[in-house]
């Protein structure tokens, strides 16, 4: 068991198909009689328009051209935001209508206007060019400050001043008082640059409709097929839930961007019903750039008040958060409850106050992206801590140690609504510094200096709230859904096991990790366990995968189901072995009568359950299949320290990351190999944000970074080898003691990189992405 159980780096089950080209991604499927869709998209950031589809409708191969007017005629609803944030004034946020196809006004470049369905993808694209759109341009607003200015163009009539909400958290009076007592105040203005998610697989969907049964099927790139089904059924109202089958097969990365219910997937499903044939759409990358929800895009002013010893007395943060042109599916909660609640960081800061204005602009909608609010919070906290350290002449690591929440202080109630459950922040910091040889940095800096290079070192002691869940908590904060997870265990008569999870794997390796968990817990061979996910007709209703929640919440649901399996197995064994149920002990897959050599293997129990020839049927049901739903008591709180060391060439402004150390506390770890891989990928995302990636619009609202030619994705030679280790304080409130690892790197990395660069440059006058040009300019000024 050891080589495949909990704690073993088992090679992944799913790799065989991915490595041989036999994966099953949405675009890989072709249905008989399938048609293809192309979208007509706005080329203007803000305009009213009229449409003439006559030429397109009669173009070769075209089946139909559908518009917003057709949607209205069919009484199809608009897209929704599933989390209602309440502002300072007690009023709910503004969520103006987000049409599936724009009706008379477009609000960002790429806004979908019409769907063209044809016999081939080429015919659909050719015909889309023939849809005549007459635009009457309206004044557009791109920057948040312009959007909030008096007299700014109004994007939605029901969002005055382009304000979505003005929200606050923390204690303003207590924080003002802390600042009044301060020995020193550090101040920073920070930009958290807008990112474009760029999962390598573009979004794709195939809608189908069976006129005989009235059933719809949607095969799509989704991180949460049940949420897609729920929203498409209950809110957009294309078909009721029981007549809509949603499948998310192999999905090529998500990072948040495949959570949301978008225009295109919705239109494809509806169009399939209109024409009674399958309709396929696959985004080309240029569409992904304008139509996938973007991430981050904050501007913040932050102030930290310290006493003479460097203790954090108060933290004050004021943030503008860009929502883009419409409020996307979970956009509202990202710069509020996933952001402001994390400003405690790892520290005992005595008072915190944060206010956030969420702003509409004529840009692509912004929503959750790997980390979602927590990278923004960590960036604010960890940058200001380093700034304070420099200003007060205290070593950056030492300042953190003085302010860490002590390991014996958990559970720790924060000043911003959360209660941290566990952690040992100093342990991770000290280990990271040891690996990074922090003590000898001065000598390395001197050696770099002798070669004409500037060397810097940066720390990021991050924290995140993961296992996004407790339904009561998120419900009280405005979430429209519960955030539990489901898990099912079905023993087959021959003793092998089907595992059903409501979470969804799109790179995380659940088919392996969950099989390890089940194999270990139930004592069945790893090879006898099959994990099923991503299909609303196969698995129980589930909430999907985001927020590093799958193992903490979904794995715990499986534990609940397995406990029920064991309880029933005990009854079966007691009956079969003619013992009392209380005397049956379960261990390593065997049900044994305590103190005897009589036992039954769980596979024998399963066979007996399906061949109940002499069962006492009034006491014991046949079959061995159980479902568990798990709703945790709290979030989980992964935390750790990342250390980045850089060398900057002042002549060219080029930054090279010369060392990366990550020490993370994820609680217990099921598959260390997979966990390390998650950290590597997260760090790459964060390094990309810090050094390379920056979504840019021109002043008129045209996207300047609309392809991989213009938007710099991190490549292999931009990134270092990384040293990744873990510490472990098990999560005390879930049965596995796990915390989640998928976002940590993306949360920790940007501050580590920028602290290293500002350390190297000796100036703060630089924002992300710290491109060679930006670094060179910062040095020149």
């Amino acid at each position: 068991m050891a080589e495949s159980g909990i704690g073993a780096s088992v090679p992944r089950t799913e790799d065989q198909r991915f490595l041989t080209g036999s994966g099953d991604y949405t675009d890989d499927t072709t249905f008989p009689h399938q048609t293809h869709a192309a979208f007509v998209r706005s080329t203007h950031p803000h305009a009213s328009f009229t449409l003439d589809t006559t030429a397109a409708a009669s173009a070769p191969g075209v089946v139909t051209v559908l518009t917003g007017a057709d949607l209205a005629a069919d009484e199809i609803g608009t897209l929704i935001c599933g989390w209602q944030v309440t502002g300072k004034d007690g009023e709910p946020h503004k969520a103006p209508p987000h049409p599936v196809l724009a009706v008379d006004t477009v609000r960002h470049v790429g806004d979908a206007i019409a769907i063209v369905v044809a016999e081939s993808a080429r015919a659909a694209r050719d015909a889309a060019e023939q849809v005549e759109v007459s635009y009457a341009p309206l004044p557009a607003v791109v920057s948040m400050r312009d959007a909030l200015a008096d007299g700014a163009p109004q994007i939605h009539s029901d969002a005055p001043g382009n304000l979505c909400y003005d929200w606050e958290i923390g204690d303003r009076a207590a924080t003002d008082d802390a600042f009044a007592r301060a020995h020193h105040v550090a101040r920073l203005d920070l930009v958290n640059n807008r990112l474009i998610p760029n999962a390598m697989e573009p979004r794709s969907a195939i809608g189908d409709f069976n006129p005989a049964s009235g059933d719809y099927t949607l095969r799509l790139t989704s991180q949460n097929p049940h949420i897609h089904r729920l929203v498409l059924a209950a809110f957009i109202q294309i078909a009721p839930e029981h007549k809509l089958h949603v499948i998310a097969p192999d999905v090529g990365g998500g990072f948040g961007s495949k959570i949301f219910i978008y225009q295109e997937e919705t239109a494809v499903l509806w169009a399939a019903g209109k024409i009674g044939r399958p309709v396929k759409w696959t985004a080309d990358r240029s569409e992904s750039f304008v139509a996938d929800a973007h991430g981050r895009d904050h501007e913040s002013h932050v102030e930290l008040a310290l006493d003479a010893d460097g203790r954090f007395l108060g933290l004050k943060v004021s943030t503008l958060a860009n929502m883009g042109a419409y409020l996307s599916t979970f956009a509202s909660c990202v710069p509020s409850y996933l952001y402001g609640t994390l400003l405690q960081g790892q520290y005992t800061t005595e008072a915190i106050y944060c206010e956030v204005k969420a702003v509409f602009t004529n840009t692509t909608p912004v929503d959750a992206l790997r980390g979602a609010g927590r990278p923004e919070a960590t960036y604010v906290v960890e940058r200001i801590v380093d700034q304070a350290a420099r200003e007060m002449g205290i070593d950056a690591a030492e300042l953190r140690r003085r302010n860490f929440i002590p390991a014996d202080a958990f559970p720790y109630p924060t000043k911003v609504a959360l209660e941290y459950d566990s952690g040992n922040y100093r342990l991770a910091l000290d280990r990271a510094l040891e690996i990074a040889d922090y003590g000898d940095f001065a000598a390395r800096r001197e050696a770099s200096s002798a070669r004409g290079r500037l060397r810097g070192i940066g720390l990021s002691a991050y924290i995140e709230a993961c296992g996004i869940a407790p339904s009561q908590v998120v419900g009280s904060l405005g979430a429209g859904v519960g955030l539990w997870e489901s898990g099912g265990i079905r023993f087959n008569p021959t003793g092998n096991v089907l595992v059903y999870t409501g979470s969804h794997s799109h790179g995380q390796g659940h088919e392996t990790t969950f099989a390890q968990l089940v194999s270990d817990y139930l004592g069945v061979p790893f090879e006898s366990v099959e994990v099923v996910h991503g299909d609303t007709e196969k698995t129980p209703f589930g909430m999907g995968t985001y927020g590093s929640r799958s193992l903490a919440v979904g794995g715990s649901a499986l534990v609940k189901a397995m406990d029920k399996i064991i309880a029933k197995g005990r009854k079966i064994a007691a009956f079969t072995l003619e013992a009392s149920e209380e005397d049956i002990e379960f261990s390593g897959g065997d049900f044994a009568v305590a103190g005897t050599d009589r036992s039954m293997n769980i596979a024998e129990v399963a066979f007996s359950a399906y061949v109940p020839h002499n069962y006492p049927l009034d006491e014991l049901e046949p079959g061995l299949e159980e479902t568990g739903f798990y709703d945790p008591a709290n979030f989980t709180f992964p935390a750790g320290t990342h250390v980045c060391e850089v060398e900057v060439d002042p002549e060219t402004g080029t930054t090279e990351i010369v060392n990366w150390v990550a020490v993370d506390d994820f609680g217990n770890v099921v598959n260390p190999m997979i966990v390390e891989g998650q950290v590597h990928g997260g760090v790459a995302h964060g390094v990309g944000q810090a050094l390379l990636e920056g979504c840019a619009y021109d002043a008129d609202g045209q996207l300047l970074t609309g392809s991989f030619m213009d938007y710099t994705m991190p490549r292999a030679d931009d990134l270092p080898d990384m040293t990744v280790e873990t510490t472990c304080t098990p999560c005390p409130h879930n049965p596995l003691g796990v915390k989640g690892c998928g976002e940590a790197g993306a949360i920790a990395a940007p501050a580590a990189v920028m602290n290293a660069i500002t350390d190297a440059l000796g100036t703060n006058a630089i924002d992300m992405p710290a491109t060679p040009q930006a670094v060179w300019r910062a040095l020149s000024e």
Partner: protein
Amino acid sequence: MPVNVSMNVNGRAISEEVEDRTLLVELLRETLRLTGTHVGCDTSQCGACVVHVDGRSVKACTMLATQAHGADVVTIEGLAEGGKLHPMQEAFRDNHGLQCGFCTPGMVMSALDLVARNPDPTGPEVREWLEGNLCRCTGYHNIVKSILAGASTMRGGS
């Protein structure tokens, strides 16, 4: 205008009528149903579509099918023999060189061309070679490790 294209794909002779503007990747995915070769962008940047044409790695999204007329084409489906993974595929699995799997076929095909030209590459040489292949999941750390391990096995190392 329809044109005939004939070539060897994974050792099998094929001959198909296609529209003249058909890309090699479209021929592979749509006509031959070899869907292991992926399309991740429209600017020849991501490398998810890398296949071998006459032994050299080529981005199949950047070549017309007719340009491969008469060529030997190998795709990711052509590597494993009798269900046994190629050593480079094996190395990716053993070193967790893939997560979502979407960039993986292109990474493996690109890696094999590197090893054909440079059987004993260094880590930095691997990183430089992968300039034309994007991955969003792995941070490349384990891809580099996989390619070094795969190259070592192919040289007859352990």
